């Protein structure tokens, strides 16, 4: 295990996927968004120029083409860049890719990955800050991964590329700068549906995904200073979801806070709360709390953006409110 940058791990797993399997093609190229890391993609572009496709600004066209290509023998990893642009591709993602295998009676496979950079990024304003994962979770037929560390992006993307199903790879631009240990074993992969307890604790369960895992871990340290021992559970994949891990943690701590960057109404946090309210009602000793983006379009101005964001402070406050 050596420490590695998330952005580097991302490029590494893309490069290896292209290297090891002829069928893997990258369609779109803004995997690292327009961050200063983006030039790292050159290593793939330059070594495998015929495996990287630069589409027109035509999301329903090229994302749909990736779906068609998956049925015809490729394993595309299609990049949608800013998650907000997935709406342009929704007819193909939601109404084609998700349905094909089922609709065909279990015959036609769609082995592919949709990558996008979601969330409140600093100045993205209303049209470039979406977290579409709740909408995708409301769409049966899509697997969903949400890595939060360099090791997880390596391990989850390897599994996603090997999967025979369309898999949405929820990524967050703010993660690119995170450094962490990553296994060097080229065969290391993370099975879908296995949550990771990123911090053990006994007083309160904090469930978080993607970039919010990083914020929640920081919040947990601050809670520790106040004598509260928080457990941080990262589901890592929303579909399939490791309900057991969440329920076990809640049965131990009897308290739950869910931190998630989707808008609140019908967001990812709503679903996790609903599962616990249905399945672990008797275990709870306090109301559940959601820490999410407020239900307003994301504003541009920095203080406004920060006001509506789910922050470390808000996670700490929520955890305190259910433990005191």
């Amino acid at each position: 295990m050596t420490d590695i940058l998330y952005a580097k791990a991302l490029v590494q797993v893309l490069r290896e996927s292209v290297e090891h399997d002829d069928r893997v093609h990258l369609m779109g190229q803004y995997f690292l968004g327009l961050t200063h890391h983006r030039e790292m993609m050159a290593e793939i572009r330059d070594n495998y120029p015929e495996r990287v496709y630069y589409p027109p600004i035509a999301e329903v066209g090229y994302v749909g083409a990736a779906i068609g290509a998956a049925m015809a023998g490729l394993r595309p990893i299609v990049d949608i860049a800013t998650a907000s642009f997935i709406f342009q591709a929704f007819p193909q993602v939601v109404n084609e890719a998700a349905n094909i295998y089922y609709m065909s009676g279990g015959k036609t496979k769609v082995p592919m990955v949709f990558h996008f950079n979601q969330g409140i990024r600093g100045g993205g304003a209303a049209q470039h800050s979406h977290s579409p994962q709740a909408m995708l979770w409301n769409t049966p037929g899509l697997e969903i991964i949400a890595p939060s560390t360099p090791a997880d992006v390596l391990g989850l993307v390897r599994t996603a590329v090997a999967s025979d199903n369309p898999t949405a790879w929820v990524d967050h631009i703010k993660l690119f700068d995170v450094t962490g240990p990553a296994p060097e074993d080229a065969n290391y992969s993370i099975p879908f549906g296995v949550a990771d307890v990123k911090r053990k604790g006994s007083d309160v369960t904090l469930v978080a995904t993607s970039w919010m895992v990083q914020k929640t871990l920081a919040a947990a340290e601050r809670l520790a200073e106040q004598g509260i021992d928080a457990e941080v559970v990262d589901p890592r994949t929303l579909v399939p979801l490791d309900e057991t891990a969440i329920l076990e943690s809640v049965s131990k701590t009897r308290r739950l806070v869910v931190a998630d960057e989707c808008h609140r109404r019908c967001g990812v946090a709503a679903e996790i709360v609903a599962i616990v309210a249905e399945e672990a009602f008797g275990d709870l000793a306090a109301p559940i709390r959601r820490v999410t983006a407020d239900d307003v379009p994301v504003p541009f101005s920095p203080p406004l953006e920060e006001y509506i964001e789910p922050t470390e402070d808000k996670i700490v406050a929520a955890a305190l409110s259910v433990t005191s």
Partner: protein
Amino acid sequence: MLPDLPGDQLVEQLRLMLVIRRFEEALIKLAADRDIGHFHVYIGQEATGVPALSLLRDGDFTFTTHRNHGHILARGADPARMLAEILGKETGYNRGKGGTLHIASLEHGFPTTSAATGGCIPLATGAAFAFDRRGVDNVSVCLLGDGALEEGSWHESVNIAALESLPIIYLCENNSLEALGQKAGEYPSSTMAAAPLTDLASIYKMPAIAIDGTDSAEVYTTMKTAVERARAGEGPTFIEARTVRWPGNRPLWPQLLTGETDVAMMWDDDAIPAEHAAWHRTNDGLLTFGRLLLADGHTIASQIGEIDAAVTKLAEDAVQFALDSPYPAPEEALADVFA
């Protein structure tokens, strides 16, 4: 004119056209008796689909629409399993999960069928992308209605196909010419400022050809050139096949206004009823095809009669098979979300 093919192959094409016709007629009759929901039939377009798709081979992919029955039958699908699917039976091609809108059969090169207007276009383009990148000489055929050209997915996809010189044929069946449905307050179609429709492809620098979709020779020859071009890596082609809308073709509730087709109309003008005579005489590509076969001596009336009897039986058996087949077990609903 007839496609430039040996007589036996032409007779086989007639047989396939009749399979489609008798299948759709059987379906309409079945629907008169019981509520099987809505569906769209291919009557009147057989002379486009059969010759065009006869040029495909194993490994080629075809993407079709809500009006898919004829296309899938033209590639040799089993009418019984088709009808079973339309009734939602376990024995259907999709084991009941797709229904009329989504019939899929990988063995016949139909990986999925989208009933979202324009939905098939990016998918078909992507399959061609895969063939290109894999370096195989398969082709992708995108069958679309004229209405689908109104969707943005058309513009985005055709641009990609042109830029990447993909092995695809966009075969647009323009059946709006007698837009009965529109008058009846149902789907307006061909709400398109661009005319001719071929402009919608030629501007992207690809061959774009309008043909008479009831002229099987024109369909065959144009499609042959397009398929060869695609296999040779020379890029996409757009074909607009103009057909005359079959009088019974209400968009969702087709009716046998013209009656069941009497194949004798191919050789016996007296068999043509006064009502819809123009349709039978000049617009029905299937009848025209039969007449040409007869005129060129590739077949005789009695052989057509025999073929027709056989395919009529096939359609009847298909109905029986579909009716007799069980529904899938209800809990099957939860299976096959993921591979």
